[in-house]
């Protein structure tokens, strides 16, 4: 399979705030120096499929953070306020970094459409290259078509490829879950 790499240059130097953390502080640095990859997990506190993937994302976080993979839970929907997300993170024992994508900048940067959906970036020359965007695994083929368990772990394979410096395999199917709510002007 040929790797399909979309390049997105992130201008870290500008003053634009990408997102905020749960205390309302701007998130200015998705990838601290030395990071080898950034994973954005697009989540919605009220989306059941998204919630079902939380343990899997936490597993991947524990497994790959020591190798320099920085994982963010990103909440793009307008209803997911700091208060709602804080309660949700507590309820689901989420310990990973959390970003409120209140302007949907990260959503646009990643071209995410769905929760749950993941994007993987590689830091490069002061910017981030998106090398993967899509489903976490193949457990859900559509709403209503669900495997008892996943047979292919697309996101994990992508992360491993990045760490191994190999071409990154792309998702084998579309993300399944809840559409990200469009921001009203």
């Amino acid at each position, binding site marked *: 399979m040929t790797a399909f790499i979309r390049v997105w240059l992130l201008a870290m130097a500008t003053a634009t705030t990408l997102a905020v953390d749960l205390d309302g502080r701007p998130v200015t640095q998705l990838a601290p120096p030395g990071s080898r990859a950034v994973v954005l997990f697009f989540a919605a506190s009220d989306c059941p499929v998204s919630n*079902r*993937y939380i343990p899997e994302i936490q597993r991947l976080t524990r497994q790959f953070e020591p190798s320099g993979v920085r994982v963010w839970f990103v909440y793009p929907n307008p209803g997911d306020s700091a208060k709602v997300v804080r309660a949700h993170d507590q*309820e*689901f024992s989420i310990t990973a970094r959390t970003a409120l994508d209140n302007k949907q900048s990260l959503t646009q940067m990643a071209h995410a459409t769905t929760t749950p959906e993941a994007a993987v970036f590689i830091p490069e020359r002061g910017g981030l290259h998106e090398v993967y965007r899509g489903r976490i695994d193949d457990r859900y*083929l559509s*709403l*209503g*078509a669900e495997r008892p368990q996943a047979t292919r772990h697309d996101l994990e394979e992508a992360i491993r490829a990045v760490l191994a410096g190999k071409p990154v395999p792309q998702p084998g199917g*579309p993300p399944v879950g*809840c559409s990200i709510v469009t921001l009203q002007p």
Partner: protein
Amino acid sequence: MNKVGRVWWWILAVGLWAGEVAATAQDSAVTWSHQIAPLVYNNCTTCHHPGGAGPFSLLTYEDARRWGKQMATVTASRYMPPWLPEHGYGDFADERRLSNEEIALIAKWVQTGMAEGEASAAPPAPKYSDTWQYGTPDLVLKVERPFTLPASGTDVFRNFVLPYPLKQTHYIRAMEIRPAVPQIVHHANILIDRTASFRRAHPAQWKEGVPGMELEVDTGNDFDPDSNFLFWKPDTPVLVEPEGMPWRLDPGNDLILNMHLKPSGKPETASAEIGLYFTDKPPSKQPMLLQLEHDAALDIPAGDRDFVVEDALRLPVDVEVLGIYPHAHYLGKRMEAWATLPDQKKKWLILIPSWDIDRQSVYRYRTPVFLPKGSVVHMRYTYDNSSANEHNPHSPPVRVKAGNRSEDEMAHLWLQVLPVNVPPGSPDPRLLLQEAWMRNWLNKDPGDIIPLYNLASALAAQGKYQDALVVYRHALALHPGDERTLNELGATLENSGDWQQAQKVFLQDIADHPGTCNARFNLARSDLKHDQASAAEQQFRTMLAQCPADATIHSGLGAALDSEGHSDAAEAEFRAALQIDAHDFTALYNLGSLALQSNQPQQAADLLQGAVEQRPKDADAHQELAAAYALSGRMSDAVVQLRAAITLSPANPDLHAQLSQALASTGQLEPAIAERKAALHLRADDADDWNNLGVLEARAGRIGQAREDFLRALQLAPNHAQARSNLQRLPPS
């Protein structure tokens, strides 16, 4: 790649829909208030309300707007509302299915920006109780030790045992199940374990629940087939049984709650409360759950995409099909069930083109489906054990056989049928259904003890003792020493009249299985019947020590004590029986008789009325009740009871004689004379009857007739003082 292709095709189809809608309905604006809210309230909010079984609420415009895109997607794919049967193959109540027009309306609403419209025009949102939907239950059962469902992993199937705690039998007209977290429960089935067999089989585990998708329970010794589907799914929290068809719980029964649980992403408490609503009225209709299956044929090669399993059952009686429950696990693909009528016409019962265990359900027909005797019910299931079946639990696929784990398979079709057009005087039609079911089962599994035993029992219950004995002996040849089969062999011998042989079989069963309660009970009853009351007493006392508390043991012991002349001790046992089961016939009848003997006719009448209600076809009970009424001075009530007894037992001269007396005391001389003559027709040599007939003739003014009657009495009994004195008192003719 195939799977992915399907997904994309499906998304395209959604787009197609939207295009069509745009072309056909240009002008009329679709708004929440006017079109969408009524549709959502009618079809979605029973689950999708705060605290409901759905994962989110759709009660308000803001809610619907949040989920609009999903609503368009999942209604177009018909994932929602959840409904598996194909429209037009069986007409089901509560069909939860949107019309194409409704689906198009949602698509258009979303496409055109999800307008609210005039808020005041929206119908009021339905209200849902946050406690019991059906009101305060008469009894609430709770899972004793909640189970913690892990945050992630495969679905979990778990069986919780809820013992029925009451000491009285109750009939249940409705049931509501309230899972602690309804969002994690796909569906739940409740089984009645009449003998607490599952709990006893898992003594260390039952409190926190036992894993497994299917289970078998011991139904006990009486023919007491399951009658009602007790099935919970998210949109049906309350099960209300049709009029006249409540189900029953006896002391010592367990309910087993079999829950299909879905991990949510965080650890969840899997627990539930079951609310029961009682009725005083016993069932007036007796439906039965009937099964087609062919698990033995399930041996599905890895990769097979079209593995077919079939079964067919010929109905021995007319029935109405009230409900249907198809069941397979993850490999099931297409399910068909139909009946071939005696005229060879095909009548569809159900078609599920794309099975999904997650959305399984019991389906009830809008109107009962009549199937005449001789109809053949067919099931035909297709399984897909290839990797193209996304539900396949094995990757790569492996050979799969029948079993109760979720990764095994099943091929079951349950029907709830109500026998109809039963000719008067024929045996319980459920026995004929049971016989047909078991013969069908034996065709598939000839050596299986369950159908052998059940077939023999069904034959015995129809009074076909010799046929039953053949099957029991065959079963024992295949399964030597089987406790229950031995016991039933003994019971059938007893019923066939060979009680000496029966007692030998019971004794052998007790010797082989000293803990048996069944054989002891039957031996005790046999002892009682054959004037061995002290032996019976001994068996009943052993049972009281080692068998579960049971009304029939107490009432049996009471009967033994009564036969031995210990009426006070007997009375105490009968009262203990009624404490456990207020409907125990033996206790009601005997206590009533004892009250009658101790000249408490009012109390006797109350008890004996209860006995008659339990066994309306017991002539003795009617006769005793008549005596109680007569002693209370309620002569016309006594007449009614005696007439009922005579209908059941027309050749009993005592009943005619008593009826004659009751009629005479209410001044109905001629009918009284007719009944006395009826008694004499049955026993012409009874001097008392002739004397009493003479009295009635005399009162009717027929002196000559009276004289002849008294003379006849004196001829039969020359020392009959009353006849002599009556004769002397007659005026000269």
